[in-house]
């Protein structure tokens, strides 16, 4: 049985990957076999933050469906072009043409075709893969094709692959870098997790997002804890957060050049600047998380 800890933020750009990558690194150094999962497939930066790919262990395509046209049957009546609400069909001299950048595969066009010349077929939307990062921590994540979006199913598949690899690596702890926001991919990132760590920055939008995330976690019976990141950007609003967010605040992390640098260098700050104040704050926070998990 492995324990999944999700790091999420109701709004993007708050530094969730900064926290999850350093947390994974910290756990690894402490001797826990840890597996990192990046559910934020539209910005797959967790593996970059952990030193980039050292070796890919496994990959597979992630599929969805799209439409295709049997031109031998097509009457060029244009009903399909008129019907598609995603503007994925246009009429050319040869007949209707599908723009695969926009086709969602819902098949509305197929439903109105008077001669059933349109059918659904599988299509690659991206891929999911497992790899060892240069920090030695295994990571499971995905990569989306142009124009494709994250989905609940994709996150689910990534988590399933992660569970498989957690057995292979004997990893008791799985750290999940969740998709941003509060939609389907986030719910899929949260379900079944043991603990949620909310990363919030001192802006009103971030606080709003954090509160909605907490609501979601409560509904799913998942314990929530919070970390305030980049607190020095607005110390007074930081105090507002402490009052407004009904969650235990594990600690505050400041924002400065060292953070930016560690990001650029693709190394956790715990590795590049272990003696810095930020690193010691992070360690305090991570130790507290372990305490809450009784580990």
């Amino acid at each position: 049985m492995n324990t999944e800890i999700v790091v999420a933020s109701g709004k993007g750009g708050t530094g969730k990957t900064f926290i999850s990558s350093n947390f994974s690194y910290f756990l690894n150094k402490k001797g826990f076999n840890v597996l990192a999962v990046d559910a934020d497939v539209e910005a797959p930066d967790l593996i970059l933050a952990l030193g980039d790919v050292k070796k890919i262990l496994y990959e597979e395509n992630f599929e969805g469906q799209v439409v295709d046209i049997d031109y031998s049957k097509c009457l060029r009546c244009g009903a399909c072009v008129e019907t598609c609400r995603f503007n994925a069909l246009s009429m050319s001299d040869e007949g209707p043409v599908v723009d695969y950048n926009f086709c969602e595969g819902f098949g509305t066009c197929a439903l109105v075709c008077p001669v059933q010349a349109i059918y659904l077929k599988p299509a690659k939307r991206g891929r999911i893969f497992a790899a060892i990062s240069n920090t030695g921590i295994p990571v499971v994540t995905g990569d989306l094709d142009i124009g494709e979006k994250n989905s609940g199913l994709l996150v689910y598949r990534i988590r399933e692959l992660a569970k498989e690899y957690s057995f292979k690596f004997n990893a008791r702890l799985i750290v999940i870098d969740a998709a941003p926001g509060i939609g389907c991919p986030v719910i899929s990132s949260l379900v079944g997790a043991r603990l949620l760590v909310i990363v919030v920055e001192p802006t009103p939008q971030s606080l709003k997002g954090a509160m909605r995330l907490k609501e979601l976690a409560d509904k799913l019976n998942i314990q929530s804890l919070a970390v305030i990141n980049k607190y020095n950007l607005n110390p007074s609003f930081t105090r507002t957060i402490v009052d407004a967010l009904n969650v235990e605040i594990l600690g505050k992390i400041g924002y400065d050049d060292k953070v930016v640098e560690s990001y650029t260098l693709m190394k956790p700050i715990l590795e590049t600047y272990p003696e810095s104040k930020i690193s010691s704050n992070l360690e305090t926070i991570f130790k507290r998380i372990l305490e809450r998990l009784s580990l």
Partner: protein
Amino acid sequence: MVTSMGWSGRGYSRGRGGMWGYQAPMPQIPPPPSGSIRIVAPVDFSNGLNSPISMRTGRAPYIAVVDVSGGKIVNVNIVQNAAAMAPRGAGVQLGQWILNIGASIVIAVSLGPNIDMVLRQVGVRVELVPPGTILGDALAKLGFVK
């Protein structure tokens, strides 16, 4: 605008009650025998009454369907959860199936917002149990089985 439908399941919908496109439908199972109540629980693997109840519901790998009558188990059916592969709305698809098969009770660890709403519509009774609970134990503890 629609002149004919042409839904004979030729590659784009899998038969009666099939889901649109390439998604596999949930399996068909007969209604509960008269006089029995039907209980559904998402489980992590198929091991009869020893199956552990899953932390997930909508995307649980298997669904256990237990028919109980007078404190005795009449039927145990564990099926693969096709809803797990739904790109979106997995909980809804599972919820719809639970309504279709005439279940009146669901035992789970937690319910996602969508399936929760669907089940409330017909007043399906939901019993939440701690993660790792074994199906047979849950049925006994909740008093469905003597």
